[in-house]
């Protein structure tokens, strides 16, 4: 069965050109870039080129890039560095809808190290209240960590505006941009962001590689302590194939940026409109405009997400759900709950996330297969039948 992959916020396919760029660095050019011999030393040039490519795609300079093992490590590095370099400041400002990489670290810092975490709330559309943001950031704030775009809903936060507020109070501004890189235009040179996290496997690069952008002049304290790699900012022999892959992936992302974004947006909008038109009692989760071009989160009332995913799975359709049953915990998505999405649609929330590889045919296929799945499961459900049957007869 062919796979229709609409789960690109979870991870993406490696671009074959990325794989080709990485290939020589396993069995042939396996030298250590720190070595004194030219066999290793020349590899350092490839690492430098990858750094340059990644920096360029962000509008940053190569010196501002620190390679890490992924998005999670970049997040930890940023937050712990900010706390280490401002020991008198005892507060962290972040949102209730961060990825666990930030959320659970902040919870732990509150529990184990006595930090006060100011959790910013979001409204029904997943947006922040800028008045609340202003009131929460104070001279006691060590770091403001606000994701650029949310992984579940795609909602985009005004990180530039928040950076200004953070800086007015002398706090460091970090943004988890793991979902935004490659989908949102970025020019960090013209921005005030101090730290920015990204991850290779969300932009058609390999897993296990990421980077932290560290604005020139920002106080820094390393998280992984060891050798002198990454200009003393991250110890450990470089993941050379990963770094080369990430550099190439970033280059390819910016090369076709406008086209990729336009394609994803057009197909996403078609999917959204198609589902909304054929499935009654379906609601968009998240702001319709301030949103990534590839993400569509829909709550289908009176059906449960895991059941939907299982029935899509046998049709080869891959997506994610915010339902409790898929998470292994018993609580549905913390993001959708923070937004106040009602229970009858939280459990049936499905996230479709597209990539530059998504095709018209795939969207047509999903539009054909998904509505009957929802209808079938609703016919089994004890809830809302009167209302549903009234609506369903129209079809």
């Amino acid at each position: 069965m062919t796979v229709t992959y609409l789960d690109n916020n979870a991870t993406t396919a490696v671009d074959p050109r990325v794989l080709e760029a990485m290939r020589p660095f396993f069995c042939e050019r396996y030298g250590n870039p720190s070595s004194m011999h030219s066999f290793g030393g020349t590899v350092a040039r490839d690492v430098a080129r990858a750094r340059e490519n990644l920096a360029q795609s962000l509008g940053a300079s190569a010196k501002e890039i620190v390679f890490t093992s992924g998005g999670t490590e970049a997040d930890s590095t940023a937050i712990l560095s900010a706390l280490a370099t401002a020991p008198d400041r005892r507060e962290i400002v972040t949102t209730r809808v961060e990825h666990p990489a930030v959320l659970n670290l902040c919870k732990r810092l509150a529990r184990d190290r006595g930090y006060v975490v100011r959790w910013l709330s979001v409204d029904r559309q997943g947006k922040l209240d800028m008045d609340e943001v202003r009131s929460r950031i104070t001279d006691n704030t060590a770091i403001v960590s606000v994701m650029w775009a949310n992984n579940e809903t795609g909602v985009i936060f005004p990180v530039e505006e928040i950076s200004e507020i953070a800086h007015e109070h002398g706090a460091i501004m970090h943004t988890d941009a793991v979902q935004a890189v490659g989908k949102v235009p970025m020019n960090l040179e013209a921005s005030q962001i101090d730290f920015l996290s990204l991850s290779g496997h969300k932009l058609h690069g390999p897993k296990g590689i990421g980077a932290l952008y560290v604005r020139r002049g920002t106080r820094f304290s390393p998280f992984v302590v060891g050798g002198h790699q990454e200009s003393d900012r991250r110890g450990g022999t470089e993941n050379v194939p990963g770094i080369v892959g990430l550099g190439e992936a970033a280059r390819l992302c910016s090369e076709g940026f406008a086209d990729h974004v336009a394609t994803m947006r057009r197909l996403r909008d078609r999917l959204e409109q198609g589902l909304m038109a054929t499935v009654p009692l379906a609601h968009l989760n998240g702001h319709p405009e301030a949103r990534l071009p590839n993400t569509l989160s829909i709550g289908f009332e009176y059906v449960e997400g895991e059941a939907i995913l299982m029935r899509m799975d046998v049709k080869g359709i891959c997506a994610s759900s915010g339902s409790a049953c898929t998470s292994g915990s018993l609580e549905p998505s913390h993001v959708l709950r923070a937004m106040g999405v009602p229970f009858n649609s939280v459990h049936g929330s499905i996230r479709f996330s597209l990539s530059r590889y998504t095709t018209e045919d795939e969207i047509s296929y999903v539009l054909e297969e998904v509505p009957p799945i929802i209808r079938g499961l609703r016919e089994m459900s004890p809830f809302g039948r009167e209302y549903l049957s009234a609506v369903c007869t129209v079809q």
Partner: protein
Amino acid sequence: MWEYTEKVKEHFFSPRNVGQLEDANAVGEVGSLACGDALKLFLKIDPQTDRIIDARFQTFGCGSAIASSSALTEMVKGKTVDEALKITNQDIADYLGGLPSEKMHCSVMGRDAFRAAVACYRGEPAPEEQLEGELVCECFGVTDEQIRSVARENNLTSVEQVTNYTKAGGGCGQCHEKIKEIIAQVRGELRKEKKAPAAAARPMTNIQKIAKIQEVIEKEIRPMLQQDGGDVDLIDVDGNRVLVALRGACVSCPSAGVTLSDAVGAKLKELVHPDLHVEEVSG
């Protein structure tokens, strides 16, 4: 990704007995939209014989909730109410070839829905009202009596298991201490009860014991040994010592000691009394 058995998948993709039953005389409802799963069970019971003639369900929930509901309807059909009341949540899980431990609450939901339907049929208050108790888990609305009943029936030993089976403790986690206390109480009760039935098993008279041993040797053990050209005779029973004599091929068989302890001893322990032990005598 959950590892579901083929049987779970089959009952999820082609559920049996879906829908309402117009002439149902018993309906049981459990769960809620807020909790993420709910089951409404319809039964048609013959009032003369108490036999369940038909069963249907409507379920809102995940794959294993739908599969458990489907399995339940298949299991209760044709049984009398009393027979079907003996079905435990573990029986439902077993019918499906097992459920992931985190999903056991789906089988509990099946059991609870059936009990609710029976209460409705018998004109009794719904079980959750009988089991009102004290609210322990506020996130999922689970009372101490509900936890106690499920922990007892499934011999649960940890908070995690209680969460898997009842959802209690799966939200904010504030009730974990309370759940631990309930588990400790239930474990204590179970330990006490376990001692009691062992004592109850003992008052078998010597005559009864010998008769039972004889029966097991005749029906279970001799046919087995005779297949290999051997045989066994019961010589005497002295307390828990069972004295036997081996005949035929068994006498010269080099593994005679193994045959004795393996076949005769194990069978007698299993079918008569665990304290028995077998000794060979030349008879």
